[in-house]
């Protein structure tokens, strides 16, 4: 894996001088982990063309495949971090230099400078000056991170009293809103709920068609108008239709928008106002979809979308790459918004509840 070159080069330089043996050893370990994860990926992966089949697989059965996939995805993404840690702390004293390097490692997961500093400082309080082993320091680090994340790990729970429970899905362009809706629809359909989808992205070419495909896959009616139509009007109609049918859930897709475009944000506010004309309590959930590759701009995204449309929860997508989504830790510290789910692949079953400790452990390269 040439991607290893990043840490190899970065940390290898230092460790190679003092501990050439450790470097070789951990490199070997890295390969083993890589092979294992590739195996797991092979087991779990379904060719994309076969996706509609996968959609028909019951949840429990798909669970195995998913776990393998999550592991594959996350362990790929974290193996380098894990290796970096291994290089760092093989028979080492936790001194200032080590802490600084640890902080740097956290920064490379997009944790952000301030959060990385706080986490390492807390670690230093209890363990400064001790001789530490990689496993021990990873455990401690995962614990710190999990402690921050635990309060925000809350699933999306539709209120059965609402017919429908309205979920508005927002985010910047390309973050994965439509795909996330498809996956969420699949999950709630599997639970036996009736779901309506509203193709509110009336701006992007073929976005409506994209959601329609998901509607077919998951057996959900899709309320749509032509590209260029008024999204608020469409949302109003979709809500009326879902109410008439007495559906359990209504997911409203929206066009991607950058948070600094005030006119587009105002449009979103209008959509919410229009919904409230029929149901004052709607939308019951407003999900902000974030791409795992996003860096510190995630702060601005959450801040603005929260201000404008009262975001109630986050979904982190594309966590199957090397991006680790560390910014989520900083967001949890700052905003405390629930993280409902993470997307770990392109299959319908690749959306899973967010679990603090497994996310934290994967982030630091455990498991």
């Amino acid at each position: 894996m040439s991607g290893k070159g990043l840490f190899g080069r970065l940390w290898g330089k230092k460790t190679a001088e003092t501990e050439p043996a450790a470097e070789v050893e951990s490199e070997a370990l890295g390969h083993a982990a890589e092979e294992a994860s590739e195996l797991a990926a092979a087991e779990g992966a379904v060719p994309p063309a076969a996706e509609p089949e996968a959609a028909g697989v019951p949840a429990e059965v798909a669970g195995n495949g998913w776990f393998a996939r999550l592991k594959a995805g996350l362990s790929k993404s974290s193996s380098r971090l894990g290796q970096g840690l291994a290089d760092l702390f093989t028979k080492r004293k936790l001194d200032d230099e080590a802490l600084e390097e640890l902080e740097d490692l956290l920064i490379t997961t997009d944790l952000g400078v301030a959060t990385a500093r706080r986490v390492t400082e807390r670690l230093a309080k209890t363990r400064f000056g001790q001789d530490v082993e990689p496993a021990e320091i990873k455990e401690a680090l995962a614990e710190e991170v999990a402690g921050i994340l635990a309060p925000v790990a809350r699933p999306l729970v539709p209120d059965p009293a609402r017919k429908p429970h309205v979920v508005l899905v927002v985010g910047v362009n390309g973050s994965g809103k439509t795909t996330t809706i498809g996956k969420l629809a699949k999950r709630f359909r599997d639970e036996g709920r009736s779901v309506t989808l509203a193709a509110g992205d009336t701006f992007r070419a073929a976005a409506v068609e994209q959601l329609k495909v998901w509607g077919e896959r998951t057996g959900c009616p899709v309320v749509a108008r032509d590209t260029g139509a008024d999204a608020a009007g469409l949302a109003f109609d979709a809500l009326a239709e879902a109410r008439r049918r007495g559906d359990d859930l209504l997911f409203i897709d929206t066009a991607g928008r950058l948070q600094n475009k005030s006119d587009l944000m105002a449009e979103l506010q209008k959509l919410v106002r229009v919904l409230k004309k029929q149901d004052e309590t709607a939308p019951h959930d407003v999900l902000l979809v974030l791409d795992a590759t996003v860096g510190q701009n995630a702060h601005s995204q959450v801040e603005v979308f929260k201000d404008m449309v009262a975001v109630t929860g986050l979904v982190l997508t594309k966590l199957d790459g090397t991006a680790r989504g560390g910014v989520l830790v900083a967001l949890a510290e700052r905003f405390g918004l629930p993280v409902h789910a993470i997307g770990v692949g392109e299959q319908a079953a690749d959306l899973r509840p967010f679990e603090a400790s497994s996310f934290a452990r994967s982030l630091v390269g455990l498991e």
Partner: protein
Amino acid sequence: MFESLSQRLSTVFDKLTGRGALSEADVGEALREVRVALLEADVALPVVKDFVARVKDRAVGQEVVKSVTPGQMVVKIVHDELVATLGTEGADLNLNAVPPVAVLMVGLQGSGKTTTSGKLAVRLKKDRKKVLLASLDVYRPAAQQQLEILARQAEVGSLPIVMGEMPVAIARRAMDVGRREGYDVVILDTAGRLHIDQELMAEVAQVRDAVKPTETLLVADAMIGQDAVTLAREFNEKVGVTGIVLTRVDGDARGGAALSMRAVTGRPIKFLGLGEKLDALEPFHPDRIAGRILGMGDIVSLVEKAMETVEQDEAERLAKRIEKGKFDLEDMLAQFRQVEKMGDLKGIISMLPGIGRLGDQLKDAKLDNKVVGRQKAIILSMTKAERKNPDLIKASRKRRIAAGSGGTVQDVNRLLKQYQQMADMMKKVGKLGQKGLMRHGLGGLLPPGMGKKFGR
């Protein structure tokens, strides 16, 4: 939540009173702030380290130019180095090959490949090229339709969709059609893929081997974080990248990824995506991105512009008066004239750091150069004595001045109030001495709340 680099540096350098060459200690402390600023701008850590080391080499021992603070000096050095690293502008598409020239678009899911393909088509069409768009994205639902619609909007050719055809076959067919129908350029839009997805990376490599593209453009989102290095390296090693397109530059991300990807691949950044419309594609300007990454607006060009236009003796005369705690309406008039010389007021204010977030407020404020003209007219309607001693101006004088300047007494009152605020502030600045004025730079020359005042 992000402080601009200039803010960070001013806190570091406020402690410094001495002038002369930048010492290693000064630079070291400043560079810690530079490091944090770059990391907050999402420049990848290994790239940051390398960059900071280079700046250090350049900065230590550097003479601080008279009339600039050490902080500004460091900003300038950092800025210049950033621009140098980001590369030169004007790297256009390389189409030097036998037509049809293949352009391959690659990148992660959701990075903006399809939209960028459409934008490139529009751009090439303007250069009188015959362009064919072909989507190889057989995975994302309706992706092929999306490109087809964009082709129609751009009024360029679109490869007919054959359901079930695989990417390599589509690519071959696109090139065949391109040859047969006399297209100049064939843009191949691939499916988004993760750089660690071996299977899909192999697939795009096969496409590359089949069509031998002249350009392989990596399309990446300006919001991307630390992973930019891995992404860029993997795509460059596995597929071979000839240029980078940075999208969503119209957002408020700092765009540090540009620096990371450029540093890792050595490939030029060719275009910036600046909006959802098909004409929102611009050639790359290193200056612009460097300023964003540092979060300092265009303070560097502001400083340069100021040095060019504000005459030195005028500035010195003003500085002396302020030092004595004197500031009258003549001085205010002189300032209005300087502001006018420096160009559009809105332009100047938007160049000031930290103003980006105030964008909306500024829009409301409706800043207008005409307002400056009106303010000038009011002062010009006063007698010399009045200008030197504004306390003289009472009711009847106000009426005369209002009539003389074609305004109302309220306008005169507003100007006098504004003058009072400025005078108060100048007194404070005066207490700091001339160095204080220089340190506050041009920001200190603008009255507080000027935007609001002028907006009436």
